[in-house]
């Protein structure tokens, strides 16, 4: 028995957040303001995501938390523990077994299914923020669908780097209407946003915004006709499970240039290793 209300937040707060989520689902890609609460963790650690998760959790849910694809990093472990303690829900590291997945900066490799909810932690929800500092003006630009500026950013990318160098937080247009910041996921994950079977909810705690992409919603990455969008990743295969189609982290292994590439999605990688896949640096099994 915990001394906290189920999932930490009080019922009125959860109700308020659920209303924001419902509005977000009704207007895909629109940033709904909500009265973000002070959470027992610093801003930037996922206060928005935690509030959305708290509002979505039911006692029967199974929760998975990932940070940059990994289940075992500080952020993921603490948030998972937080909900174990305050909500007493079941937790898992398996993407397929989870009903709610809170994520920071990745979409799991395993395709999501109907009935799952993917909750994103968002630092800066406004895709136009670094182009137009005034909030009043960016809101008006969203209202009027005045998105020429977004392409100015991409133009600058090409002018300076010869290609669209934006590799994460790559702007998308949702259902032909709102331009949205998909949170800092790598652009490799952008195609997975579109037509997803799971509900995707984005929570920005400090900025007090919630937005959502309902299942089977069309999400298009912005680009130029002669510089089309490209979902890029490191041109390697995972050194542990040998997968050449998953998103990779580069790990420096010594100070003489040694490095390895591993799947950023630890659940995906572990699953493949369990199924017998091996990569370049997998421990050699002795048959002896």
């Amino acid at each position: 028995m915990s001394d906290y209300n189920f999932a930490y937040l009080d019922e009125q707060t959860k109700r308020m957040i659920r209303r924001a989520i419902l509005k977000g689902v009704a207007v895909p890609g629109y940033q709904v303001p909500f009265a973000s609460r002070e959470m027992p963790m610093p801003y930037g650690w996922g206060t928005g995501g935690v509030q959305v998760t708290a509002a979505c959790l039911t006692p029967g849910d199974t929760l998975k938390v990932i940070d940059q694809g990994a289940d075992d990093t500080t952020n993921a472990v603490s948030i998972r523990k937080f909900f174990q303690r305050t909500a007493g829900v079941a937790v898992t590291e398996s993407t397929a077994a989870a009903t709610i997945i809170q994520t920071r900066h990745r979409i799991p490799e395993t395709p999501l299914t109907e009935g799952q909810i993917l909750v994103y932690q968002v630092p800066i929800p406004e895709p136009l923020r670094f182009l137009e500092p005034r909030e009043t003006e960016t809101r008006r630009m969203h209202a009027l669908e005045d998105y020429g500026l977004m392409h100015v950013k991409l133009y600058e990318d090409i002018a300076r780097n010869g290609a669209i160098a934006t590799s994460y937080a790559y702007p998308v247009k949702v259902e032909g209407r709102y331009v949205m910041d998909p949170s800092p996921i790598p652009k490799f994950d952008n195609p997975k946003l579109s037509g997803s079977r799971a509900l995707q909810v984005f929570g920005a705690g400090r900025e007090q915004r919630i937005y959502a992409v309902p299942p089977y919603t069309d999400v298009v990455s912005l680009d130029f006709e002669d510089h089309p969008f490209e979902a890029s990743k490191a041109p390697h295969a995972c050194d542990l499970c040998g997968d050449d189609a998953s998103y990779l982290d580069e790990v420096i292994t010594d100070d003489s240039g040694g490095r390895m590439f591993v799947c950023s999605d630890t659940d995906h990688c572990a699953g493949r290793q369990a199924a017998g896949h091996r990569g370049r640096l997998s421990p050699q099994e002795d048959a002896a």
Partner: protein
Amino acid sequence: MTGQPLLRVEGITRTYGGRIGCTDVSFDLWPGEVMGIVGESGSGKSTLLGCLAGHLPPDEGRVIFDTRAEGPRDVMRMSEPERRMLGRTDWAFVHQNPRDGLRMGVSAGGNVGERLMAVGARHYGRIRDEALDWLTRVEIAADRIDDRPRQFSGGMQQRLQIARNLVTGPRLVFMDEPTGGLDVSVQARLLDLLRGLVRSMGLSAVIVTHDLAVVRLLADRLMVMKGGRVVEQGLTDQVLDDPQHAYTQLLVSSVLQV
């Protein structure tokens, strides 16, 4: 010169609380015509220009613009998206301070291309070609296309601002002291450029300035404002050579002769 005036201004009044910004200003602007508005600081020139360009809502009066698609429309009663669309296709606004009209963190090419992208251009190569063409037209070297306006001189910034505004081929340009803050030789070059562009593109323009030399060179007609009111208007040469109103006489005689 048949049919409609391009811009018809009727009884524009704008007050700031009890103070008059400008009051009861009316005029017609015909296609290809350049109208100069002169007056001392605080005479309501910029307020008037702001009202005309839709930046400030006037308290009274109408601004009727002869739109391409639908003929004369009251700009004040247009919806915001329509007005914004107008503001980046048929209209242009050149600010006194280039920092107000440019995006200082975006390269010259991006600045020129912004209007194109805002009206739906999505082909990088073509946007860039257009930007290059316009930089050449305003005498900015092509190899500066990826430099930011911060690295430009004041005169270049102002020319860049002009290129950025004219790239969509507007029919009406509002200019607020386009030569303010530039030294005389740079001013002369800029005026030369402006005059060339206005003539070759058949632009109509409303130019607000306190510099009589600017209107002498550019404007066909002249309006003199004082205390928010128009005190005299007529052909530029007529007003400057034979001023009738006491204030105009003072203004004309105040110009230093070198």
